C-alpha cells in the first residue's frame, strides 16, 4: 500500500484514471505531510490545537484538553475568509506533451496538462474546504471552459468535470499538419485570455495560472500588468516536462510542433546548448516579469511531486488573506 506522500507523485497519480480521486489523494498526501511542514498552523484541520508557547494569546487555550491531559494547547477556530481563487489551466496543444510516451494520447503518459489539471483540482479542493470561492478556467488561445465562482460543496465536482471535459489536442489531431492553424486554435494568447478572465472578476482574487507559458514574453508582460493593475494577486506555476528542461535527445530527429509550428529536422546534440539558452532566457524573462509585479513564479517539473507547488499555493493563499485582512 502506497504511503500517503506517494499520492503526490505523478507516477502514482498517472495510474489513477479519475481526476477527482487524484485530487483527493493529492490533498490527503499533502495534509499528511503537513505534520512536518514548515507551513504548520495554516492548515484548517491541524490548526485546531497547538501546544502553548509563551506569548500566545491565552484566550484561545483549550481548557478541556488541559483538564484531561494537564497540557496547554491553543484552540484555533476556522476563520471566515473572503478569498476568491481563480485557477487558470492552460489546455493549449503544447500542454499535451509528455516525454514519458511518444504518443501523448496514449494511456499512462503523464502530460503537462495532467500535471496542471491535478494541481488545479487539488487547489480547488483545498480552497473549497476553506470555504473560499473558487472559479476555474480552461484556456488555450481563448477561453475554452469557464466555471462560475462558488464555494458550494458540490462545486468541486463541477470543476473536476470542467477539467476533464477538455483535453488538449495537437495540430495533427486537429487534422492540420504542416502548421496551418486550425479554426478552434490551440496555441495560447494570454492577453486575450486574461482580458476575458479579468472582465469576469468583480472581487479581488488570487489567480493561479498553471501553464507552460509558451508564448511571447511581451504578451505575458502585458497580461500580468493588467492583472496587477486590477490588484489581483497571482501565482504562476510554469509547468514543463523534464525533456523540455533538459533536452536529452541524441538521435537526429524530426521535431514536429504540437501547435502547428511545422517540422524541423536536426541533430539534437548540435542544437541542445542553443535550445537551453533560449529556454533559460525565456524563463528568466518570465521570472523577471512576475517579480516586477510581485507575483510568485515557480517552474514545475511535470515528473516531480506536486507537494511543493501546493505548499507554495497554501503559503500564497495565506499571504493573500493577510493582505485582504
Amino acid at each position: 500500500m502506497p504511503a500517503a506522500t506517494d499520492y503526490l507523485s505523478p507516477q502514482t497519480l498517472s495510474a489513477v484514471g479519475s481526476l477527482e480521486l487524484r485530487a483527493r489523494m493529492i490533498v490527503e498526501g499533502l495534509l499528511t505531510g503537513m505534520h512536518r511542514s514548515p507551513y504548520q498552523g495554516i492548515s484548517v484541520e491541524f490548526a485546531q490545537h497547538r501546544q502553548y508557547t509563551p506569548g500566545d494569546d491565552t484566550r484561545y487555550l483549550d481548557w478541556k484538553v488541559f483538564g484531561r491531559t494537564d497540557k496547554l494547547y491553543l484552540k484555533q477556530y476556522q476563520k471566515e475568509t473572503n478569498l476568491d481563487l481563480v485557477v487558470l489551466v492552460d489546455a493549449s496543444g503544447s500542454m499535451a506533451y509528455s516525454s514519458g510516451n511518444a504518443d501523448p494520447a496514449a494511456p499512462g503518459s503523464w502530460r503537462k496538462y495532467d500535471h496542471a489539471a491535478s494541481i488545479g483540482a487539488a487547489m480547488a479542493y483545498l480552497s473549497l474546504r476553506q470555504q473560499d470561492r473558487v472559479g476555474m478556467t480552461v484556456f488555450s488561445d481563448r477561453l475554452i471552459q469557464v466555471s462560475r465562482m462558488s464555494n458550494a460543496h458540490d462545486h468541486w465536482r463541477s470543476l473536476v468535470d470542467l477539467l476533464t471535459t477538455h483535453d488538449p489536442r495537437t495540430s495533427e489531431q486537429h487534422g492540420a499538419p504542416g502548421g496551418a492553424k486550425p479554426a478552434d486554435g490551440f496555441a495560447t494568447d494570454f492577453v486575450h485570455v486574461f482580458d476575458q478572465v479579468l472582465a469576469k472578476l468583480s472581487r479581488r482574487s488570487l489567480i493561479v495560472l498553471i501553464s507552460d507559458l509558451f508564448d511571447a514574453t511581451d504578451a505575458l508582460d502585458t497580461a500580468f500588468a493588467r492583472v496587477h493593475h486590477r490588484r489581483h494577486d497571482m501565482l504562476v506555476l510554469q509547468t514543463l516536462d523534464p525533456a523540455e528542461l533538459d533536452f536529452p535527445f541524441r538521435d537526429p530527429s524530426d521535431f514536429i510542433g504540437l501547435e502547428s509550428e511545422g517540422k524541423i529536422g536536426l541533430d539534437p546534440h548540435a542544437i541542445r546548448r542553443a535550445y537551453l539558452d533560449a529556454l533559460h532566457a525565456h524563463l528568466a524573462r518570465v521570472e523577471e516579469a512576475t517579480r516586477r509585479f510581485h507575483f510568485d513564479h515557480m517552474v514545475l517539473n511535470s515528473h516531480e511531486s506536486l507537494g511543493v507547488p501546493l505548499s507554495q499555493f497554501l503559503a500564497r493563499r495565506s499571504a493573500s488573506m493577510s493582505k485582504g485582512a
Partner: protein
Amino acid sequence: MTAQVAGLFTTGGLAAAGAAAITIPIAIHLLTRLRRRPQRWAAMRFLIEAYRRQRQRIQIEQLLLLIVRCLIVALLGLALSGPLLGGVARSLGIDAAGRTVFILIDDALSTQAQEPGSGARADRLRDTALRVVDSLGSADRVAVWSVARPMLTQVATPSPDRAAAREALTKLKPRHSRADWPAALSALQAEIKRLSLPPDRVTVVLVSDFSLSTLDTTRLPPLELSSLGSRAKLLVTRPMPSVSNTQISALVPRRSVALADATGVVVIEAELHLRRFGVEAPESLTGIDIAARPAGGGEPLAVARREVRWAAGQTETSLQIELKATLAALGLGDAAGANARGLTLEARIQDAGSSEPLPADGLRVALVEARRRLTVAVADEPATDRAEGSWFSRPRDWIEAALAPADANGHTDTGPIRLIDAPASSLDERTLRAADALLLLRPDLLNDAGWKTLRAWVEQGGFVWLFTPPSDAPATWTTRVTERLAPDWRLSLEPLHPVGAAESTWRLDGEHPVPEMMRLLSTDWPALVRPIAVSRRIALKTSTAQDTVWLRLADAGESDALLATTSLGDGRVMMLAAAIDPAWTNLPTKPLFVPLLHETLRGVIGSPGEAARLNAVVSGEQPTLGRRWDGVESVATPDGQTLRLKRTEGGVALLSPVDKPGVYASQPGAGLRFVVNPDADAGDTRALDEQAITRWLRPLGDWKWIDPANPLATVAAERPRADIGWPLLWVVLTLVLAETAMARWFSHATK
C-alpha cells in the same frame, strides 16, 4: 594504358575498396537525413529560435565533419594500398620527383639463341624491358643501357621520354660479344653517384638470359659494387633455360703465309676447334664447310668439307684442315706477276642457319696470305770484303744451304725462298722494303743510319734476325741492339767461354717449352735440341714478358738464352747469341738448323705481331691496327659501313669497338685487312644456376627476382612508398582524433 594504371597499384583491390569506401560516410550522412525519428515537441518556439541562430554554424560543422570522415576513409584506403599514392601522384603529374629507372639489357651473343617454341631470347628480353617501360609513370625517368661488351648507352641519361626508350629497345639487336655485367654495374653506380639520385627513387632492372657466358660466378663482383644495393632497388630477371649449341670456337691458320711447294701448289693449313654446349651431349655428327676466298670477296678458290663425330659426353674437339690450291688458281702463276694474294679462310657449320639455335658462332674466318715465294735479305759483309775460305767457312754459306740450296742445275732461286744480298754497312730502306725478312749476319758493320732504318722497318712489321759475328773482338754492337731494338735485353760486350777445360761446352735445355712457331717439330723437339753444343756465345738475358726464349742453355738462368725473340712495334726481333760457325756452336751442322730457319721465317713473316693480333680480334674489342695502317682513314665493315680510325701511341686504332663478324678492309684500298670473329665464350648457351646468380648478387645488397609471369607487378611494387604510407597513417590517426574532437565539440556534448 591499362597496364600503366595497373602498375600504379600493388594492392589494387584494397585501393579500389578504399576509394569506394569514400561513399560510406556520404551514404551514412544521407541515410541519417532520411531516417530521422519523428519527435512531437512542444517547446518548438525555443527550438526554432535556437535552430535559426545555429543553422549556418551547424551546416558548416556538418560539412566539415563529412569532409573529415570522407578523408579518413579515403586516406586510410590509400595508405594501406601503399604504392597507390606514388602511382596516383605520378599519374596526376604532381609527383615531380618520380623514379629513375635504369634498364640494363643483355644483348650479348647468347641472347641470339633461339629457344624451341619460344623464339629468340633477345625478343623475350626486349619484351620484358618494353613492359617495364610501359609500366612507368609520367614523372618517371628511364635510361636504357646494353651490357654486351663494350657497354652501350642506348638512352644514356635518364629521361622521361619513354618513346625514346621504346624506340631504343625496339631497334636493339643482339651483338656478338659477351656481356660485361661488372663493368656495366660499375658504370651504373658511377652514374647514380654523379646524378646524386636518392636511393629510394632509383630502380635498376637487370634483363638478361643469364647464360653461363654472361657472368663469371666463380669470381665475386668488384668490391666497389658492394654499396649498389643500398643506392638502388635491384630487380633481376630469372635465367632462361639451357639450349644446345655447337660452335666453332677457333680457326687458327698454321702459318699466316702459305708458300707454294715445288709443284706450285699452295697448302693452307689451319687448326679448327669446336665446342658444344647443352644439357645433354649425345652422339652426333657435325659437318663443316671450309673455304678459302679472295680477301676482297668472291667465289671460293679452295674448298673442303669435314665431319666431326661427337662421342656421347664429348664437348670439345679439334681437327686439322688443309686446303690446296695451285698458284694458277690463286692468280700467282705468272712469275712476273703478283707474288702474294690475301685470302679469307672461312669455316662454317653445315646447316647452321636452320638447325643450330645460335648460328652466329657457327661461322669463323681468318686471314691468310698465299705467296709464290719469300724474299729474305741477308746482311753480310760486302762480297768484295769476304775472305776466301774453305767450304762452309762463312755463316752465309750455312744460311744459303739451309734456305736456298742449289738444285741439280746449280740454281739457288728455284725454291720458295729467295735470298738477296743487303750489305750490312750500307743497309737502306729500299732493300728492306723489298724483303720479307732480314737475316743480319754482321750487326757489327751496321752504321747509325742503318740501325735507325732497321728500327723503323721493324716497327712497321718487319722481321730481323740478328746473328752474332764470328769474332772474338769486343762486341760493341750489342749496345746498339739494346739501344735500338731490344731495350729489355742484356747483352755482354764480349764473347763468353765456358769455364773449365777448353773442350767443355754449354748444352741446351731440352725440356724448355717448344716455341709456338715450332709446334710442327714439337714431337722431336727435345731430340733436336739436346745435341746442340755451344762453345762460345754472347750472354743474352731477357727480362720482360714480351721476350720469348726459344732455345735456353741448360744449367743456366731462366733468362739466359741462346735464341730469343721480342716484339718491336708491329715487327719482331730475333737473336742467336752464337755465330753461325762451328767454332761457336754446332747448331749449323745439326738437323734442327734447317727447320729452325724455315719454320721461323714461314711462321713469323706475315704475322710478326700484326697478323697474329688482327686474326684474333673478337667482337666487342677496339683493336689497335698497327703502324702499317698509318695513313688509313677508315675501314669498311663486312656489311659495308665505314668506321673511322684514330691515331694512338701504339698506332692506328678504331674510334669505336667492332662487333659485326667478318673481314674489315682499309679505305681507301691499301690492301690491309683484319677479321673479327664472335666471342666464342659468349656462345655458351647453358643456363646459369639461380643459386650461383644469387651468390654473385648477394654482395651487392638487396635485390629481387622479377616475376617472369608478371614483371609489371614486381616493378610496380618497387615504387617508393615507405616515406608516404606511414605519414599517411599518421595523418589518418590525426584526422580520427580531430573528428572525435570536432564531433564532440560541434554537438556540445562536453558533459
